[in-house]
């Protein structure tokens, strides 16, 4: 018995294709913005501490 199972098959993926790829795009954009904000915040924290 396999230890590992993939829960979505190609038929299921085709059913949810559009919202799925929109979700991937939104996630990538939000993470990119968050990383930018963290870098900015860390710089501000360092500047204020100095």
């Amino acid at each position, binding site marked *: 018995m396999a230890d*590992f199972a993939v829960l979505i098959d190609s038929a299921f993926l085709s059913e949810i294709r559009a919202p799925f790829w929109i979700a991937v795009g*939104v996630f990538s954009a*939000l993470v990119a913005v968050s990383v930018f904000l963290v870098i900015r*915040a860390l710089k501000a924290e360092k500047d204020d501490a100095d």
Partner: protein
Amino acid sequence: MEPRMKSGVGVGFLYAYVHFVTEVVCFYALNACFGSGAGLWIAFLIYDLLAFVPQAPLGYLADKRQSIPFGLIGLVLLAAGLSLFYVTSVPYLPLVVLCLGNCCTHISGAEATLRTANGKLAPSAIFVAGGSFGVITGKLLYLANVPFWALILLCLSAVVFVLYGDSFRTEANARSNIACKAFSYHRKTIGAAAVIVLCVFVVAVRGYMGYGIPTSWKKTLLETVLFFCAMGLGKGLGGVLADRFGVRRTAIASTVLALPFLLAGDQLILVSLIGVLLFSMTMSITLAVLVSVLPRHPGLAFGLTTIGLFCGTAPIFFFRFTTVFANSVLIAILTVVCVIALFCAIGKDEKHG
């Protein structure tokens, strides 16, 4: 001026109710409006994505603009989202509104509980704990066929809690120009960026384990209720014990102790519940460590934990271990890595260590 609530624990309870209401509304709507199959699958994925990930940018905005009433905006969006489900045939727009409402109330709660905490973990831990009870209550209310307008009333009831909680935040802001300067739990010998990466990793593992731990015993509704109650209690207790016994000691002890209970509890409900309670304890600790490296940005720090939670829960939508053994091995490995990460990220307990 003498602060009315020095510890902020009261603010924690006020916002625990707001958090509870938020999750009740969201999980009621998810269960009521998306049925089952592909629709429910994508609805939960979108919900996790849009309720968790935008909290970092929104938190940053809240840090910079304290005058924006995120709590009230959140409650309005929750009520609007819930109402929209019943007037539109396309459920995704109301879902997005609901998620944004969820984000706003979370950020408001994080800002209020962290800014009034005076460096203590209990307020934010109590605030976070309220959500676990809300998740299961929302499902129960849906199963009990409670009408949706009753949930709107529930939203309205939280307005007073938000206004009262925010008044303490305003007082705390007036007392100090650095929002959370009393938080200092990170290890000073490693960089702030490394501390952030380690903490987000630990949160992601906890997010995965919340769904991935072996719980064959969880078959009935009552057992599911007990599972969520143990999770909520663990989150709250983690902050209280960390304040009492030290942050690093509590984080490492609870993570290590949770492992045998989780692995041995696949069929044993009580053993498993103790494990769930213990592994949930690091919730407020990772948040406090993140706030320690971002003391002027508590909202952003909270948002980073929710990104970690999404990263941990997202794989559950696509993959699953089919044997308890394989799952247990993964959990054991992840626990060891988490203990090392926590040890590296958290500084020595000053009061008790």
